[in-house]
């Protein structure tokens, strides 16, 4: 070996060790790579195997009980009876059916098959010859071919036909004979099969009934479904489960782990060994309208649907992922991105609560949010549109003038005629604009009526309040009245004094007429029964009863002036001075006098005496008029004045009249945005002081000012939108913490609303959901059909708190339902009516009239128009035209009624039928007149149900019949009893004794009564009253 070779490391040193190390490393990294590939980046695999295990073992426990239940039903006497009946029916026709089957299967079918082949053979040769005739050139050739066909038709063919016993018989056939036999057999077979169906009909009906009996009694899933699931689980193969919606580029793999989401068996956490991730989707109805195959998961829930490598990534809990999955308490945030523009979304209770708070607590007064409080914006829009149309009109007018001039001078008659026609066209179009402008003008007046403020008008303070109360309230409203809507501003004493002084001095001067005292006892009864408590609450702490829509009045006597309160209770719309938005001032008696006009302003007198502009003539409150007599208003006000805490006193506040404070006060009031919620003299045109929140949820996180708390937030895991909103809502000054802000004006202004945890969750849900939609427009809920009427109607329903008194949708409760007094059996019937199905119940034209004037009377307003027996009063809301339309359309749409309504035509009533119906109505056996009013004051004293003689104006006939037959189905707990009619074959007959005249009457009794009611006349009314009187005398 040479030296060189000896020193050569390649030759000399052993590479075994590095080789081993390298190969071990290689092996390890290979193993790691394989493991990583198979498991580490695919955690869903272990979830899948766990799911299969848990699901299978749950099925093992669920299946036997399901089997057991099914077995029991199969063994029940009713099932056995149905089964036996079915068997018997089958058996009774068995012989005939077998005979038919034999005839069809053993004779007709085999014979037809046997004959068909030779028949087709001959037919095809005839077909070939026919074609040759068609293409042959000479008539002679055609003749000879025709003769050939005739020959073939005469040829005899021997066919072997099978006998039923299997043997064969030979029959000789010509072509026409074959054709005839085949057709005959076919007809015979069809007739026999039809006969078979007829024979089997009773048996199949019984079988269906038996099977329905079984399926009706299996509450959840049938044994069959369970078996199917078990088979599916047995064949389970691990793999990514994904929803792919191609056209929107949506890939959601959530179900790779959440395998139970859409299982037919309802999987609860307990059923799945405590693993919540395997449970079924909690709302199957929601999935029906949002099919996951089309909607996926993440558009609603957030999260990163593509990620499968870890839970956090899949759920989008990553600082670079913009749409993290919503937490459970905010899960409905996902609804908002497509359902923005709605104030009530079905099945979105938390979100709806958030929207309601946003409205009711006045968030919208400082923060613009599309859809909320949009009347002022709409008004601007409408006025602008009117101006544009006026301009257009002027332009056309000018053009028409020029055109006529041109025509006058034209040398050509035809040309002149054309120009005149054009001018006329322009005039006609202008008249169209006039109609449009008129509509807009009405709309603009409507809108002035529709604009409401969250808080009361501060213009009225001088006649409304005890002045010393103002600073007490401004300082800490929540302390004085826990739970009040007004938030707490962080004011020092100097600010409180200046603000109070400004408010007091900015109040308008006007007279409120003096009022004698009323009766507090009667007032209390009226307050508790007229309907005040649907919005207002009374009592403090656990004794509190009533609604939260408006103020708690437990301490009203400490702050209010009696005379003002009487006016307010009597007609809350009344204000001291009208406001002219054009001149931007409150008009006084002087303005009217100067123009020689009487000082009158109300909904009929809305024009400014100075310049004819539309005035604000009512207080901007949603509080309606209960149409109380002035005496009753005094009683209620007197009662309210007794509501005060013992030893209540207010500290003197001489500074309120200090004019030096006014300017400072106005500055502060403006700074804190008070005019967002309150009407304040001189600040009517104030803009919102807060940031717009319509898209706040998709604002980049860096633009949310966490101030000095950013690091803490990141550490504590709330550096996200949810965390920002929640902390801000809990303590609006939280982001001032640690900041050096000597100047108070620099500090955060948002006041503290003292929100409870559930309220914060609801509002945070709304805000988190307030995002720029990142899904295509067609997914957004912007219906153009009746559903749009529902969306718009809800805004009005919520605005006026209809739901304080009425049930508007299924599953909702009312304030009345919670009041102690109304739990009593006698008071239960005093609850206002449910409005579920209202659109199906009433004629929309009537509803419009009713909503406009619930008294249904021009002069005697101190009454209910429909239910005079109710102590609670349907108030007059002074709805605008626009609101009336929206409400009527809303109820129609809620009941899926076609619009416009066309009354159903009913068969005319014969004289005989009229007599029968009248006799039934007034008979002892029928209770109708015992409860229903007739319009006769003597009878109606005791009435406890609406006047049915007015039914034809108010109701729809179809609903009326359904109601009579089963009222409890529409309104559980109603005073109207069920069981008045019973089924008799295809018709309904009255369940009690009927008058003799009904003998032999074959028609439906419920129909008869409906037809009677809907063809009711004045003469009939007197006849009915006479006969009811006679009946009563018996």
């Amino acid at each position, binding site marked *: 070996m040479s030296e060189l070779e000896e020193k050569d490391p390649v030759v000399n040193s052993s590479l075994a060790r590095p080789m081993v190390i390298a190969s071990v490393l290689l092996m390890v990294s290979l193993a790691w790579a394989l493991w990583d590939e198979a498991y580490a980046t695919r955690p869903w695999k272990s979830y899948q195997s766990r799911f299969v295990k848990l699901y299978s073992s749950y099925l093992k426990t669920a299946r036997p*009980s399901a089997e*057991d*239940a099914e077995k*029991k039903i199969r063994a029940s006497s009713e099932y056995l009876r149905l089964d036996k009946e079915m068997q018997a029916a089958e058996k009774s026709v068995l012989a005939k059916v077998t005979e038919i089957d034999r005839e069809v299967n053993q004779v007709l079918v085999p014979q037809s098959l046997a004959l068909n082949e030779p028949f087709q053979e001959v037919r095809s040769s005839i077909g070939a010859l026919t074609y040759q005739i068609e293409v042959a050139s000479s008539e002679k050739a055609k003749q000879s071919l025709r003769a050939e066909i005739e020959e073939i038709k005469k040829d005899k063919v021997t066919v072997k036909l099978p006998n039923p016993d299997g043997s064969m018989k030979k029959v000789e056939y010509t072509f026409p004979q074959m054709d005839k036999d085949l057709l005959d057999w076919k007809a015979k077979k069809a007739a026999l099969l039809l006969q078979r169906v007829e024979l089997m009909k009773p048996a199949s009906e019984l079988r269906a009934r038996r099977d329905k009996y079984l399926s009706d009694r299996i509450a959840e899933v049938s044994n069959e479904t369970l078996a199917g699931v078990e088979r599916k689980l047995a064949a389970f193969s691990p793999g990514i489960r994904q929803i792919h919606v191609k056209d929107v580029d949506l890939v959601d793999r959530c179900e790779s782990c959440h395998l139970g989401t859409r299982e037919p068996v309802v999987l609860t956490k307990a059923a799945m060994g405590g693993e919540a991730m395997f449970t079924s989707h909690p709302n199957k109805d929601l999935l029906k309208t949002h099919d996951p195959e089309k909607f996926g998961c993440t558009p609603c829930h957030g999260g990163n649907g593509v990620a499968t490598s870890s839970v956090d990534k899949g759920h989008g809990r990553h600082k670079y992922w913009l749409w993290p999955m919503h937490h459970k308490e905010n899960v409905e945030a996902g609804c908002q991105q497509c359902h923005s523009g709605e104030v009530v979304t079905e099945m979105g209770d938390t979100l709806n609560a958030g929207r309601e708070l946003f409205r009711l607590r006045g968030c919208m007064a400082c923060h613009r949010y599309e859809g909320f409080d949009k009347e002022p914006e709409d008004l601007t829009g409408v006025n602008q549109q009117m101006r544009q149309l006026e301009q257009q009109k002027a332009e056309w007018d000018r053009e028409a003038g020029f055109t006529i001039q041109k025509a006058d001078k034209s040398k050509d008659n035809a040309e002149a005629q054309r120009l005149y026609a054009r001018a006329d066209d322009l005039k006609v179009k202008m008249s169209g604009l006039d109609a449009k402008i008129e509509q807009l003008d009405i709309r603009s007046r409507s809108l002035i009526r529709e604009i409401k403020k969250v808080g009361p008008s501060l213009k009225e303070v001088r006649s409304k309040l005890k002045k010393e109360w103002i600073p007490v309230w401004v300082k800490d409203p929540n302390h004085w009245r826990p739970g009040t809507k007004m938030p707490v501003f962080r004011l020092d004493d100097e600010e409180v004094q200046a603000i109070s002084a400004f408010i007091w001095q900015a109040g308008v001067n006007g007279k409120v007429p003096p009022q004698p005292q009323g009766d507090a006892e009667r007032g209390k009864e009226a307050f508790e029964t007229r309907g005040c408590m649907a919005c207002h609450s009374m009592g403090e702490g656990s004794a509190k009863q009533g609604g939260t829509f408006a103020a708690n009045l437990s301490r009203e006597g400490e702050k209010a002036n009696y005379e003002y309160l009487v006016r307010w209770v009597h007609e809350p719309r009344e204000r001291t001075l009208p406001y002219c938005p054009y001149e931007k001032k409150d008009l006084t008696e002087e303005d009217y006098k100067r123009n020689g006009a009487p000082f009158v302003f109300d909904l009929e007198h809305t024009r400014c005496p100075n310049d004819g502009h539309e005035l604000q003539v009512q207080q901007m409150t949603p509080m309606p008029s209960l149409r109380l007599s002035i005496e009753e208003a005094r009683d209620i006000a007197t009662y309210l004045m007794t509501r005060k805490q013992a030893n209540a006193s207010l500290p003197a506040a001489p500074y309120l009249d200090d004019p030096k404070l006014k300017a400072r006060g106005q500055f502060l009031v403006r700074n804190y945005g008070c005019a967002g919620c309150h009407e304040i003299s001189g600040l009517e045109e104030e803009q919102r002081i807060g940031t717009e929140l319509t898209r706040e949820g998709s604002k980049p996180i860096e633009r949310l000012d966490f101030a000095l708390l950013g690091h803490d937030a990141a550490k504590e895991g709330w550096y996200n939108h949810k965390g920002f909103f929640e902390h801000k809502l809990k303590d609006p000054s939280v982001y001032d913490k640690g900041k050096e802000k000597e100047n108070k004006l620099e500090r955060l202004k948002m006041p503290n609303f003292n929100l409870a945890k559930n309220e914060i969750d609801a509002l945070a849900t709304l805000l988190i959901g307030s995002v720029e939609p990142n899904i295509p427009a067609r997914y957004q809920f912007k219906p153009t059909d009746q559903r749009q009427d529902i969306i718009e109607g809800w805004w009005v329903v919520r605005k006026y708190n209809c739901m304080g008194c009425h049930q508007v949708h299924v599953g909702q409760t009312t304030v009345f339902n919670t009041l102690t007094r109304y739990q009593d*059996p*006698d008071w*239960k*019937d005093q609850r206002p009516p449910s409005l579920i199905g209202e659109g199906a119940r009433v004629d929309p034209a009537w509803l419009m009239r009713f909503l406009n004037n619930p008294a249904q009377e021009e002069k005697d307003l101190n009454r209910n128009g429909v239910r005079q027996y109710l102590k609670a009063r349907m108030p007059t809301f002074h709805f605008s035209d626009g609101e009336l339309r929206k409400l009527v359309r809303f109820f129609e749409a809620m009941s899926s009624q076609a619009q416009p309504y066309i009354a159903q035509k009913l068969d005319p009533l014969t004289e005989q039928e009229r007599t029968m119906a009248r006799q039934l109505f007034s008979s*002892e*056996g*029928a*209770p109708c007149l*015992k*409860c229903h009013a007739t319009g006769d004051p003597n009878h109606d004293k*005791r009435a*406890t149900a609406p006047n049915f003689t007015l039914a034809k104006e108010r109701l729809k006939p179809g609903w009326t019949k359904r109601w009579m037959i089963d*009222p*409890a189905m529409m309104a*559980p*707990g*109603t*005073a*109207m*009893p*069920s*069981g*008045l009619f019973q089924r008799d074959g295809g018709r309904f007959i009255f*369940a*009690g*004794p009927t008058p003799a005249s009904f003998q032999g009457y074959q028609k439906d009794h419920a129909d008869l009564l409906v037809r009677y009611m809907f063809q009711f006349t004045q003469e009939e009314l007197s006849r009915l009253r006479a006969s009811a009187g006679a009946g*009563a*005398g*018996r």
Partner: protein
Amino acid sequence: MRKTLIAVGVASVLTLAGCGGGSGPAKTEAPAEKPAAAAAVDDANAATLTGKVAFTGEKPTPKSISMEATPACSRAHATPQKSEEVIVNGNGTLANTVVWVKAGLPAKEWPAPASAVKLDQKGCVYTPHVIAVQTNQNIEVTNSDPTNHNIHPLPKTNREWNESQPPNGEAKMKQFAREEVMIPVKCNVHPWMRSYVAVVGHPFYAVTGDDGSFSIKGLPPGEYTIEAVHEKFGTKEMKVTVGPKESKAVDFSFAG
């Protein structure tokens, strides 16, 4: 040999399981056939509670009811019908008071008696004024009047219903599935009509009659909360312990 033993063991466990499973859902079937109240307890050791519901204070004068709105009703009474809201018996006791074992019974199913409790409408008055039934026991509602009535119970936990019953119409068989003491019943046509139904989940209850006394028999020994319920005067509670075969007196008293 071992296998056989195991097989026998498994079989017996299965049989027992089968029996156990069978008894639960049986309650969905029509009311059980055997009479329940007495058979429910070990008779040999059963205790009895007896007592009176006393009334102290001034005896109220019952108000007369005006039935003039329905002549068919007023015709049925020679003298005006009196309100049955408070009936103080001659011996100073209170009638129409439900006394029942509110708590303390062992958790078990007490099958409903097969017999129905009658509730008649006669002279436009519910008779009797107060009835007590067991859950799922039949109440037979009849109308003996020549006028139409509607029976409208207003329960808080049970399901509410309101059904019309024509003159001399078929009797209605009704049950309440859940314990509730007491359910007011009214007639919307004749607003003065009122009755109460006490629905109890077991057979240990009674309604005081014209001597104000009650007796609850067949009670297993134990410690109980007994409650007396009156439509106007509300509820009174009492704790009672009874030993085997013991007869104990329990007296309640309501003040007017």
